[in-house]
Structures are given as C-alpha cells and as structure tokens.
C-alpha cells in the first residue's frame, strides 16, 4: 500500500491544544507544508505571537522566538537583520496584528523586510475569551460587543491584506480561506507563493487566512465553518492584492 498523505516534516508528531473545529491546526499544516516544499526547515526561525498561536514551538519542529503581543514583525526584523540567511516568518492573530501590533506590521511591511507574515483572521480574540477584534464584523456579538459591533462607535473591520498592499515595501499580499477543499488548495498555493517570495529574496510577503473560532463564536464546528463563506468572505474578499512579479 502506498502512503499518499502524511504529516509534514516541519510539524511535530503531537496533539494540538486547539478547540474542536478551530482552523489553527489546518493553517499550521499549510505553513509546515510550505517550509517542507522549499526545504528550509533547518534554517527557519519562526516568531510566535501572543494568543492561541503562542505555542507554535510546541507544534513546529523549528527554532522559535516568542514575541510580546503585537511585536512579532519587529522581533522578526531583528532576527532577519541579524541572520539574513535564515528563513523567517511570523504567525499572528487579528488582535495581535491588526490592533496592538498595527504599527509594527505596517512599518515592517513598509521597510520591505524580507519576511513572511501569516495572519490568522477569525474576527475575535480567541485566547482571552472572544472579545471584539479589529476584524469583528459590524453587528457581530462578542463578549465586549454584546449588542453587536456598532459601526458608529467601534468603526469598521480592517481589511489588512488590502491595506498592506498599498505599501511600497510589500511584494506579495493575499487573502485566503480554509473552509472548503477548494479554498484550502488555493490557501496552500498562496502560502507557498508568499514563502517563495522570501526564498527568492523578493521582500515582504503577507497572507491573511480567514479562519473559524467555533468556541468563541458559540457555534458548532460545522456552523462556524459555514460562517466563513456566508459572512466573512463577502466582507473580506479572497484574492491576491499585490504581486510585484505580476503587477
């Protein structure tokens, strides 16, 4: 019998702590797959952020630096400048990247740091119990927007992939989702593409991944998965917003 599907070498053979139906495990796998594809596991330094994904080092078999909340792009900048031969990526949630770390992501992107940023957007703060995030949809109820996000008072959700695509230092910016086999294959392709930009020294690359958080959305894994297509994609369109090779 032939084995046609196996664990990427860059992932450890361990169980994750993620909730049932959470997409972090899926995104971890796609990232590990891309590391394997380019054969860079042995020279990769991952930068973990604060949130559910802080345990990156527990699942990836790579060297990891843990960053303070929102600061992963600054930490990754220091790593890449000190070791330009290394392959550096950050893995950040929406509260981390689009709220407390807004300055760090914008300026690392604008400097064109030769790093890759994986941005997991699930429209909520997962680790702290489902509070309103900068990406929470208008009307979405969270533990700190119990009446629903109010556009007049809370503003509109931020579209990071489009926003970063405006910056001169960004070589690649895309948004993908992992809610269906079709989207998953596309996500795999675009994450590889982002990593290829770094592998070829072409500058800052960014992939936003629309993901679910069933626990904090108060939904079953299946209902949460369905919400991505029904509510998130209409506001956060999928696509490539910048590709320096193909402007």
């Amino acid at each position, binding site marked *: 019998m032939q084995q046609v599907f196996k664990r990427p070498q860059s992932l450890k053979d361990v169980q994750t702590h993620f909730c049932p139906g959470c997409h972090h495990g899926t995104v971890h796998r796609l990232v590990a797959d891309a590391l394997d594809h380019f054969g860079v596991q042995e020279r990769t330094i991952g930068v973990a952020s604060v949130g559910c994904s802080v345990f990156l080092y527990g699942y990836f078999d*790579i060297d990891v*630096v843990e960053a303070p909340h929102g*600061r992963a792009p600054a930490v990754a900048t*220091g790593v890449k400048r*000190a070791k330009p031969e290394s392959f550096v990526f950050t893995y950040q949630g929406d509260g981390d990247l689009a709220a407390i770390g807004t300055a*760090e992501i914008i*300026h690392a992107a604008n*400097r064109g740091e030769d790093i890759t940023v994986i941005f997991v957007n699930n429209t909520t703060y997962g680790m702290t119990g489902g509070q309103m995030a900068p990406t929470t949809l208008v009307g979405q109820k969270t533990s700190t927007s119990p009446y629903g996000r109010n556009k007049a008072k809370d503003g509109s959700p931020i579209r990071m992939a489009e926003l970063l695509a405006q910056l001169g230092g960004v070589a690649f910016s895309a948004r993908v989702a992992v809610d269906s086999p079709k989207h998953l294959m596309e996500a795999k392709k675009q994450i590889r593409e982002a990593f290829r930009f770094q592998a070829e020294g072409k500058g800052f690359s960014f992939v936003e991944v629309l993901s679910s958080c069933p626990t904090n959305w108060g939904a079953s894994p299946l209902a949460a998965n369905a919400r991505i297509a029904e509510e998130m994609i209409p506001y956060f369109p999928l696509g490539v917003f910048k590709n320096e090779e193909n402007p």
Partner: protein
Amino acid sequence: MSKRLFVKGNEAAAMGAIEAGCRYYFGYPITPQSDIPEYLSRELPKLSGEFIQAESEVAAINMLLGASACGVRAMTSSSSPGISLKQEGISYMAGAELPGVIINISRSGPGLGGIDASQSDYFQSVKGGGHGGYRIPVLAPNSVQEMYDLTMHAFDLADIYRTPVMLLGDSVIGQMKEALVPNTRTVRELPEKGWAVRGKGGAEQRVVKSLFLGDGELEAHNWHLHAKYQVMKEKECLSEEHETSDATLLVAAFGSTARIAHTAVAMAREAGLKVGLFRPVTLFPFPEQALSKAAGRAGRVLVMELNTGQMVDDVRLSVGAGVQVFFYGRPPGAGSLPSPEELFEVIKKHYHQAAQ
C-alpha cells in the same frame, strides 16, 4: 600610548559599543541622546552592521530582542519617556534571559517634563522598571571616558548573565565633551551562546521564550533569576571612593551629581572639613558592602541626587542603624542643576549641624 579624542559622552558610548563588537542598533530619535543613533547610522554600515530607525521605542526594543535571540551583540538607546515605552520589551528580555544593552540618557519628568539633567529614573532603572519582578544591572557613568568603558563592560555583563543591561546617564554626561582615550576592549572569557536560535540545522530545536505554564515551572524560573541577581551582588558591584579614609561626613552621589559633588568635596577639604565622596558606579547591584564600610567609618552620610529622594532609600538599607543619613535633592528642571558652591554650602551646613 593610545590616542586621545575630544568627543561627546553620547558619541563615546556609541564608540564603546562598536569596540565591544556591537553591529546591530535599533533606536528612535529623542533628546538628549540622538547623537547615539546619528553616530551609529553613520558608522555601522561601514562595518557591515545594521542600523534601523524604528517606528517606535516599542519596535526598537523588540528588534533588539529579535537580534539578541540570534546571539549577536545589539543595542538600543533612548531617554526617559522612551525608556518607559521600552519596559515591555526589557521585561520580556529579562524573562527570556536575553542579553542586550540599553542606554538611557535620562531627562526630567514626570510626563514630558523637560530635557534637563535628571536622576528621577533611578527607581525605574534599578527596581525592575517593567512588570514581573526582575532586575537588570544598571551602570552609572560620570565621565565621557566611563560612557565608553562602561558601555563595553555592559556588553560583557549582558553576555555573562544573559540579561539586559542599562547604562544610566543624563544630558550632563551625554552632551558634555571631554577627552577620551579609546582603549581597546579587554577580552573577557564569555559563555557560549548555546541557547541562541539559528535555524536548527538538524540539531535540537531551540526556543527563546518567557512563557512558563507548567506546574512549578515559573516559580522555579523566578528563583533561578533571583539566584543570578545574588551572584551579581557578590561579584559585580563597582564603586569609587575619594577622601573617605578619615572623613567624618560621607557624601554619596552617582553620575552627574557625583561629578559636581566631587568639586564640592574638594572645596570642603580646602576649608579643612573632613568630607569624603562615595560614588556607586553600579546602581544595581548596589555596592552595599563598600558603602556600609565607608559610612560606618564616617558615621554620617549626605546623599545628593537630582530628584526628591530615590537612591537615598538604598543608602539607608545599606548602612547600619548607627549611621545618620541626610538627603539633599534637586528635582530636575531648567535652572535646577546645582553648582559646586551650592553643594559646598549644603555640605557645610550638615557638617557643622551634625557635629554639635
């Protein structure tokens, strides 16, 4: 003989960093320390180093964290309000046991305060500064020469103890120009950086982190850090004494104040008063034993600071109950820097008052 240069204290610190092998600097402009990033933005590219003017103080300290995690010597510098912003990163570095040098050419506060020479950040520097109950070594230069020498020393301490180290000066020391002999670095035996991330290359995974969630893990980590601080207290205290052997009044001051007090003490000696000067060079670890001895001999200590009383607490904790402690403070601000004559008057007052 080494050549002599005529440079600013800030430039001397930047030169000391380069001599110490630092090739990575991350900073943000703030008065009165901007000569440091300006100097390094010019010199580091020539040495194949990296200079980044960061988007914020917060980003700068985190770039330092990232570079340091790779095992290279790296530095940032700022002034008081900027150092407040860096406290998050300093705490993470202390927790993750990352070396790094932070220069604070401090200014007056609270808040935006002013740019005048100040020693108001003593507590913030020596008592941890950020969250989580850590300590970092703090060095207080009083000359351009020490800005250079102690910066080099700071890098060694950082590597030996795997800790951020702060150099605490102010505009008097940073902006003053005087002669500098740029001695070459004394090479000390330094530990291997077997903890640094490098891309695992087929070896064991390395992780630089400050999160410890396992049962008892964080408690053990805190005791481990505490034990390190105890070793620093035993081995790394630095202080300087001047005319203390027969003194019946000991003046205690650090940094810029110690420099002014030095002249005031000379004036007192000229006037026949038996006054000496004790200058802590390391503020953490605080030179308790040396101070206790000198203060025990004199019986009286007069602490002088550019604030309303901070180091005086550590002085009280260091000296025995039989030693009288006086305090003279000048909270910082324009026109508040005391002259040697003013300090001499204060010395005279306490000298005679207490002798009654």
